[in-house]
């Protein structure tokens, strides 16, 4: 069964996304955005990580390198945030984020994207 991690310090947003993915055939886990995220990713190889903030990617800690072991395409990294600035989105995609969605987000679309990405990766 594929594993999905939802990372956010905002408990409400985290719960909302978790409930939106309730019907997906996957093990969904939640974590805070800071050290907890890195610790979990170091212990478990997730198939998808959904981060609900952009700040962890711009704090100079090379987050993608820590989430995704070298040579692997997993985990697929999604970022959901309120930011719409073109520079921010480009910077995120350049540093290895696979998908960027802005709030307000369509939960049906998010679910469909998650399902299709998991299917593409054969999970």
């Amino acid at each position, binding site marked *: 069964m594929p594993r999905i991690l939802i990372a956010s310090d905002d*408990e*409400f*947003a985290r*719960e*909302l996304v978790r*409930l*939106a993915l*309730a*019907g997906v055939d996957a093990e969904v886990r939640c974590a805070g955005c800071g050290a907890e995220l890195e610790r979990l990713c170091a212990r478990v190889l997730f198939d998808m990580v959904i981060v609900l903030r952009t700040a962890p990617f711009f704090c100079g800690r090379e987050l993608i390198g820590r989430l995704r072991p070298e040579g692997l395409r997993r985990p697929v990294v999604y970022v959901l945030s*309120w930011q*719409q600035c*073109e*520079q921010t989105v480009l*910077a995120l995609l350049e540093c290895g984020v696979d998908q960027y969605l*802005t*709030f*307000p*987000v*369509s*939960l*049906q*679309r998010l679910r469909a994207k998650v399902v299709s990405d998991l299917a593409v990766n054969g999970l």
Partner: protein
Amino acid sequence: MNLLLIICAVCSGAAVVGLSVLWVVETLKARRQGGFRSVLQRRYLHIVMSALYSGRGAVPRFPMLRRVGSRLVLAETLAGVVSMTYGLDVGLLRQVVARYGLDRWLLRRVRFAQGYRRARYLALLAVLPVGEGIPPRMARYGRSRNRYVRFFALMTRVSAEPLAALRRLADHAVPFSDTEVAEIMTWLRRGALPVAYEPLVASPSFNLRRVGLCVVRQFGIEEAEPLLLRLLDGEEPYASGTEALFTLCALHRPLVRREVSRCVARLSPSQRRALMRYMAQCSYSPQVLSRLFDDSESAYYDTIVRSYKRCLV
């Protein structure tokens, strides 16, 4: 004398101990309340999402709604769901609001609250799908001295009656701030109202022009260039002209034009520096600047380009 000193020491000691105990009790109470609130919100969110995904259209029951603060938690939960998503079944949420009387309850809270607290309740009303009776009651808050109260009263009316939205936005007497425009854009992005950028940008209302320019910037509408150039040449350079200039930069359009030079010449030194910072962010070449700014100002641009912040971008 010694006895008096001892009595004073004992009294002050007792006061310190009493206050410490009170502080500990209050802290524990607040923590318990916070924990309860968080648990209740999670539960309500779960119920709302289950009802939305079940597709049965039945209004769900929310436990402990009679407890103090529970109604506010429910209102915040619904507002959170509506503001962070689009494409959900608004009909069901409207039924929940009507069934539990959340709009009328919030209206009562608005009436008895003051200042920012009132604005907070109005902000919740602005997001919730409220009944028809609410918008007319917002007129009195539209005349408030508090800017936030005025704005969220406007947003409540606008979200409740989307067809009259543009007229209401145009009628708003005070120019929108950047955060207010961002709030309107978030509302538009939820698909509340299909808008065309042209009538907005060409509108005589300053507020509608600002919203229109924001639409152009956010969606990168390059076809709006002729309209932007016309705004640059307009009579009010410190209002829409400056913003049109920034919008042209955001679209990465060529800036070596007569209209742009004229507009830049009218800007104050601080506005010119702000423009240069924005141009650096939008990756304009320093060569473009030689036509728009003099040499001393171009040196400032070079310092921005060479700064470590630029390297990060």
